[in-house]
């Protein structure tokens, strides 16, 4: 941070270095998240039917209300509706998208819950709660959330 007080008090006698602390986790996905990620890899969105018949996407292993184990996976289309959003005018390097975009909660058509992802709408003026969006699939998919590169206006 060029303008921080720490930089203002820069002292040539003090040694500085950059460090990286890494936790190289590999996680087992379990059958439900695994099915969701397998779907993404194959260019398909998968949800799960909850105890009350509502569809949860991304799928959860247990019902959020009854804690019952869920098993009924449902194939969903790759289109949805933005329920809320926040415009990112200065993307962070880890955001992958290098141009301004929106973080949005997107309710996939046929699902009753929303998931968080990016919307590449070009400009903030193009973003609107309730807008229809569709998945832009990544060219190289490997069973990971980033297999959805982002959503774009439908």
């Amino acid at each position, binding site marked *: 941070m060029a303008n921080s007080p720490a930089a203002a008090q820069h002292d040539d006698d*003090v*040694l500085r270095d950059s*460090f*990286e*602390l890494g936790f190289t986790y*590999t996680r*087992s996905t379990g059958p439900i998240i695994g099915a969701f990620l397998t779907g993404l890899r194959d260019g398909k969105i998968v949800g799960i039917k909850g105890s009350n018949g509502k569809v949860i996407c991304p799928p959860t292993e247990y019902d959020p209300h009854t804690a019952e184990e869920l098993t009924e996976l449902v194939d969903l289309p790759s289109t949805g509706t933005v329920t809320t959003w926040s415009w990112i005018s200065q993307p962070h390097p880890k955001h992958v998208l290098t141009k301004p975009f929106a973080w949005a909660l997107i309710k996939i058509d046929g699902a009753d819950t929303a998931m968080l992802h990016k919307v590449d709408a070009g400009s903030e003026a193009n973003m609107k709660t309730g807008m229809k969006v569709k998945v832009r699939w990544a060219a190289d998919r490997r*069973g990971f959330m980033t297999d959805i590169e982002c959503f774009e206006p439908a």
Partner: protein
Amino acid sequence: MSEEQKPVEIMESPVYMQYSFAAGRATSRFLKSIKQGKLVGQRSSVTGKVIVPPRGSDAETGTPTFEEVELPDTATVITFTVVNIPIPNSKVQPPFIVANLVLDNSDQTFIHLVSGCKNEDVQIGTRVKAVWRDQSEWEYSFNNIEYFQPIEGEAPVDIDALKAKRLKEVEAYKHA
């Protein structure tokens, strides 16, 4: 069925945290000294104890420390453990010894490797001396000392006696 078409069961989710670390003035001086092959601690003017690596203050009393004290590279094993699992990205092969050491004329322990001997030969009180890396490899790092090696011919010391001796010595510097 190709490898690609198997259901996904594993995902990699690493977390990396990037730090910019400022060593502080006291530790910077320690690191600059160790780059020259010298170990420099700081004496607390309140307790008389010598702290190494120095942090610029005495944790016991919370007071700043100013007096720098050059220390020998010989030490005593206060306690140790035998590590049986490899450390990722480390060349050190298990089983190896990580010890809590106190440099002679100092009063604070630090952690380093004890090697150059049979692991069975290390015990509490073992006298050790630093084995420095080649001078061309010296950096701003405690790793300029590759490990501490037991000093041949020196008998293990009694820790309680060592502590009592040090406490007597530091009395002379108290409130100096």
